C-alpha cells in the first residue's frame, strides 16, 4: 500500500463524555457533596471496588478500580456512596434527548458517553465547535449545573474519543489534519484508546516508542511485522483519521454475575442467588425475543481459584425455570464444594423464536414459556420481582440493580 495522507475531510463526529459521571450526578443531587472527594463504590465496605471517583477525589490520586480502603488511605475523609442506577439512567436519557436535537444519528457508547454523527446533516456552514459549546451549556442548564462533559471532534471515532480526553475535565477539542501530528507528539502511547501496557510493549519491541512513531510507521510494517494481521492495517487507517470502527456487533449472549457480600458454601443460599441471576438473565433474554441453546456457569471461590463449565443443549430454552434447571446441572459438576465468593451465569447460542424446532414429546416446555411470559407481564406492570419463583423468596435486596460498563 502506498503511503496514505491524513484524512482531510472536515470533522463530522462528536464524542461527548460526562466527567466522573456516577460521582458528579450524585453531587448534583446532593449539593453538600460538591467540592468534596466523593467516590461511588460497588459496596461501601473496605474491599468494595471504586466505580467512579469525583473530580476532587481524582485530584488526590484516587482512581477507578481501587478498593475503598485504598481511597481511605489516600484521603481519610473521602465520602463513600452507593450507586443510584435510576438517577444515572435518568441523566443518560436526558443527555441523549439533547443530542437528538442535533442529529438523527446518535451512537451510545456507554451510560456516560455517546457519539453524535453529524454526517446526515453536515453542510459547509456546520460549526461543530459552536455546537459543542452549546451542548455543554445545555447539559448544565437542562440537566444540572454541576454536570460537566468533555467534547471531542474529529473525522473518526478513535480520534474523537482521543480529542475528548485531551483536556479533562470540561474540555472541548478538535483534531483534524492540521493539528494531528501536534496532538500525537504531546501524548503517550497508552493515552491512545485501545493501547494498554501490553500493546505498548509490543510496539516498543518493534521500535515504536511514541504515538508519533506509531503514526509514521508504514502500513506494511504494522500489518506484517507488528500486528501480523489485518489489525495493523486498521491501526494505519485509524491513526490517519479514517473510520474503521463503525461496525455494529450482534449480541451473542446474556449474562449476569454477583459478588457475594457474605461468602458461603450453603447450597440453599447459593441456589437462591442462582435463581435470581437466572431470572434477571431470563428477563433480558425474553425481552429480546430470543431463545438460548447454550449455558455457562462460572464460580470464583474464596481461595481465588476459579471453576467454570459451559454446555450446549439440544433444545432452545426461554423460561427462568429451564435456565435454572440447566445451570443447576452444571453446578453439581463442580469437582469440589468450596466457599463461593462470586457466581456468574450466562446463556449463548441465541436464536429467534421462529427458528424453534418442535419437540417430539411434549415435556411442558411451552407451558413453562407461557408462564414466564405471563410473569414478565405482571412484573412489568407492578414492578421488578413482584412475582418470583418460590426459591427466590426473602431475597429482594440480594443481587441489586447495577449499571453495566460498555453498551
Amino acid at each position: 500500500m502506498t503511503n496514505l495522507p491524513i484524512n482531510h475531510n472536515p470533522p463530522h463526529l462528536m464524542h461527548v463524555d460526562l466527567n466522573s459521571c456516577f460521582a458528579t450526578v450524585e453531587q448534583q443531587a446532593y449539593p453538600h457533596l460538591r467540592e468534596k472527594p466523593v467516590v461511588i463504590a460497588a459496596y461501601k465496605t473496605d474491599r468494595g471496588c471504586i466505580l467512579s471517583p469525583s473530580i476532587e477525589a481524582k485530584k488526590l490520586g484516587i482512581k477507578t478500580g481501587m478498593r475503598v480502603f485504598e481511597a481511605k488511605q489516600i484521603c481519610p475523609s473521602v465520602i463513600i456512596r452507593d450507586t443510584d442506577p435510576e438517577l444515572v439512567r435518568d441523566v443518560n436519557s436526558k443527555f441523549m434527548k439533547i443530542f437528538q436535537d442535533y442529529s438523527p444519528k446518535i451512537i451510545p457508547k456507554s451510560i456516560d458517553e455517546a457519539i453524535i454523527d453529524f454526517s446526515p446533516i453536515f453542510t459547509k456552514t456546520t460549526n461543530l465547535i459552536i455546537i459543542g459549546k452549546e451542548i455543554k451549556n445545555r447539559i448544565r442548564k437542562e440537566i444540572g449545573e454541576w454536570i460537566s462533559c468533555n467534547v471531542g471532534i474529529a473525522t473518526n471515532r478513535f480520534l474523537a474519543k482521543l480529542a475528548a480526553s485531551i483536556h479533562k475535565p470540561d474540555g472541548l477539542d478538535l483534531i483534524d489534519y492540521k493539528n494531528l501530528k501536534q496532538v500525537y507528539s504531546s501524548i503517550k502511547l497508552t493515552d491512545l484508546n485501545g493501547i494498554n501496557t501490553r500493546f505498548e510493549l509490543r510496539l516498543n519491541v518493534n521500535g515504536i516508542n511514541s504515538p508519533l512513531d506509531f503514526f509514521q510507521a508504514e502500513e506494511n510494517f504494522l500489518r506484517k511485522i507488528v500486528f501480523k494481521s489485518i489489525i495493523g492495517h486498521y491501526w494505519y487507517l485509524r491513526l490517519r483519521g479514517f473510520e474503521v470502527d463503525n461496525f455494529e456487533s450482534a449480541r451473542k449472549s446474556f449474562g449476569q454475575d454477583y459478588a457475594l457480600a457474605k461468602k458461603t458454601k450453603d447450597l440453599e443460599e447459593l441456589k437462591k442467588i442462582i435463581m435470581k441471576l437466572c431470572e434477571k438473565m431470563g428477563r433480558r433474554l425474553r425481552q429480546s425475543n430470543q431463545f438460548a441453546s447454550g449455558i455457562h456457569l462460572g464460580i470464583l471461590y474464596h481461595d481465588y481459584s476459579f471453576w467454570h463449565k459451559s454446555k450446549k443443549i439440544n433444545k432452545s430454552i426461554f423460561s427462568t425455570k429451564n435456565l435454572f434447571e440447566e445451570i443447576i446441572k452444571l453446578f453439581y459438576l463442580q469437582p469440589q464444594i468450596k466457599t463461593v465468593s462470586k457466581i456468574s451465569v450466562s446463556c449463548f447460542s441465541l436464536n429467534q423464536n421462529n427458528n424453534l424446532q418442535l419437540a417430539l414429546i411434549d415435556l411442558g416446555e411451552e407451558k413453562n414459556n407461557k408462564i414466564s411470559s405471563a410473569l414478565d407481564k405482571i412484573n412489568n406492570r407492578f414492578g421488578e420481582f413482584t412475582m418470583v419463583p418460590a426459591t427466590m423468596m426473602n431475597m429482594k435486596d440480594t443481587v441489586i440493580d447495577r449499571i453495566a460498563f460498555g453498551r
Partner: protein
Amino acid sequence: MNETINEKVSVILIYNQETGLVMPKKIRWRNRDYLIKSLAYYHRIRQGKNIIHIFNVTDGSLDFRLSLDSESLHWTLEEIYDQSAD
C-alpha cells in the same frame, strides 16, 4: 453523613406555569419545618405502571430526597444528607 429515613412528611409544593417549575417549598418532618431553597435534581422512577417522582432538594444546611407516589399522592422523606455530621 447520609441517613435513610423513609418516613411520611407534609409538603407544600409550588408550581410556576411560566417556567414549568414544580418544586417542594416547605416540608414538615417530626414537627419541624424546613424551608427549601433549591431543587438540585428531579427524576422519575417506574415501579411497574406506577411512577414515583423523586425530588432532591436542599434547605442550605440539609439535603433531602423526597418521593411522591403518583398513585397514592403520598410524600415520603427517603433520605437526608447532613453535612455537619461528616
